[in-house]
């Protein structure tokens, strides 16, 4: 076994190839932040607002569908730009994979990845266990608040929006939440925030019903069981069926909606087992999705998570 995930891949294929998706992802995360920050910092106004709602070049409205839903549950009716913005976001993430938001856009991912990296470097094994479906409960809870109290209570503590808004409009005490996420992930539950609790991630996961972009373990027969993909993956339970399911007749496509399409499994695999596939090319690769609708996939996922909490977290 490697001293750290991706050691063999780095040795055999070079540092750059073993980090290419990570680099692209960081470029995406920092690039989006830069677009938002260009206005307030250097006065080049490309995007105004923040991830809750924004306006690009004065024509493209984008808004967070989860936040807008909370606003509407409190009894407010948004204007056209808000609705159109949310619709664009919904369609986009439905196509590219809901949790692409988490790994390619969300600023808290930087904190969460830092915690995971520190954990591997310092050999700190956070041993706390909470069910990965706790996030759906929290999602339900935060939607209940505006309905019952008329206040978007979640926004008082939402680390995602507080981090992003803080970077653009001023952080205040918001950094304490970032430290809390870091320490929680590092010492209490591995990938504890993004992988178990965050209701924003849970919501975006639900959006990605049948994304056009997916990771597939297309060359799974070459897997040498080094476990690096499981060690690096923020949601390791999504890999197992696709990588090891050949005997049970499960296809090599990662269909679990919690896969964030971060591409780290592709990076760290020295055998080039994984790769991104597009929907229209899957048929050609023999990677047709199992005949299975989104609801039963979710049900199966939840069942797996509750009945076999240990087996669903091989990396934990």
């Amino acid at each position: 076994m490697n001293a750290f995930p991706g050691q063999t891949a780095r040795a055999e294929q070079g540092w750059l190839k073993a980090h290419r998706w990570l680099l692209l992802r960081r470029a995406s995360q920092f690039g989006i932040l830069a677009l938002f920050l260009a206005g307030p910092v250097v006065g080049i106004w490309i995007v105004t607002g923040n991830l809750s709602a924004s306006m690009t070049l004065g024509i493209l409205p984008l808004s967070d569908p989860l936040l807008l839903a909370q606003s509407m549950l409190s009894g407010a009716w948004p204007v056209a730009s808000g609705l159109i913005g949310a619709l664009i976001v919904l369609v986009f993430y439905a196509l590219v994979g809901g949790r692409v938001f988490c790994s390619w856009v969300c600023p808290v991912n930087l904190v969460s990845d830092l915690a995971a990296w520190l954990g591997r470097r310092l050999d700190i094994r956070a041993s706390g266990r909470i069910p990965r479906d706790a996030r759906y409960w929290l999602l339900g809870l935060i939607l209940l608040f505006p309905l019952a109290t008329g206040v978007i209570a979640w926004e008082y503590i939402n680390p995602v929006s507080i981090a992003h808004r803080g970077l653009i409009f001023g952080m205040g005490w918001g950094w304490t939440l970032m430290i809390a996420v870091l320490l929680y992930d590092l010492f209490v539950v591995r990938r504890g925030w993004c992988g178990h609790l965050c209701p924003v991630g849970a919501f975006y996961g639900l959006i990605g019903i049948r994304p056009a972009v997916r990771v597939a373990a297309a060359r799974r027969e070459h897997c040498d069981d080094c476990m690096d993909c499981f060690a690096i993956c923020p949601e390791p339970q999504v890999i197992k069926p696709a990588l090891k399911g050949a005997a049970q007749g499960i296809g090599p496509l990662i269909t679990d909606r919690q896969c964030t399409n971060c591409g780290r499994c592709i990076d760290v695999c020295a055998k080039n087992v994984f790769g991104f596939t597009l929907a229209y090319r899957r048929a050609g690769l023999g990677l047709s999705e199992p005949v299975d609708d989104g609801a039963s996939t979710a049900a199966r996922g939840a069942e797996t998570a509750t009945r076999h909490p240990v087996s669903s977290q091989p990396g934990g």
Partner: protein
Amino acid sequence: MSPRSTSPRATLNRRQFITGVMKTACGVGLFGLGLGLYSQRATSLPAWAIRPPGALPEDDFNGACIRCGLCVRDCPFDMLHLARLGDKIPTGTPYFVAREAGCEMCEDIPCVAACPTNALDHALTDISKADMGLAVLIDQENCIAFQGLRCEVCFNVCPIRGEAITLDMQHNARSGKHARFVPVVHSEHCTGCGKCEEACILDVAAIKVLPRHLAKGQLGAHYRLGWEQKHEAGGALVTPDVEHRYNLPEGMRYEHGGRGLIQEAVPGQPASPIPDNPLDVLNRKGAL
């Protein structure tokens, strides 16, 4: 294997499932309780923080606003802020502080146009109908206009000058011979923009914008102001007052609430019983 032998395992699984669900539910419930109690505290807006024009009533605003900051960005005068975590204002919501910079009351109301959620109500199209609060000349002890000095800065900077703030000329009782020009705010015209508070020349403003519910009193619903009732009805609704008759010398009249004692010229008589020359009085027989 008999069907019975599988049942203990099934029971165990059901037990595990239910306890697992209960654990999660209790954890989430506790979290929700904490969040609920915190959000109650975190929802209160201090009186010195003023919402942008068109903002819904505070309770509705905290449900509708998604904390995006588009209003802040589209304000051409850059006087709106988003509350930070730890501020005494609901986190992420927009506000301004009148003393730092009041609302300039743009005619096209760009902050409202930018709002994607109607937290700033798009029904507001006439900025003079905005209701951000109400200016109150709260410290009459320190306002220099009340000392009889000419200031009138609040009156002059008011965007609805002469309507939202007027100057009331009063007698200066201190000097006994001067006037004082006291600024008076009229709640039906004041939008709460805060320019008066921003401009007040004191070290701490004597005129302040307050939330309307703090600034306004309300007359008991049963009160009827007689003169208004009379005006509406076009005449007295109770027995009309009998005009008071004054017992005055001929040629004199008294106007109550008006000019006071009036001396009317009577033909063939001197204009006044009191001669023009005071010596005549003194020289009169029997005087002194």
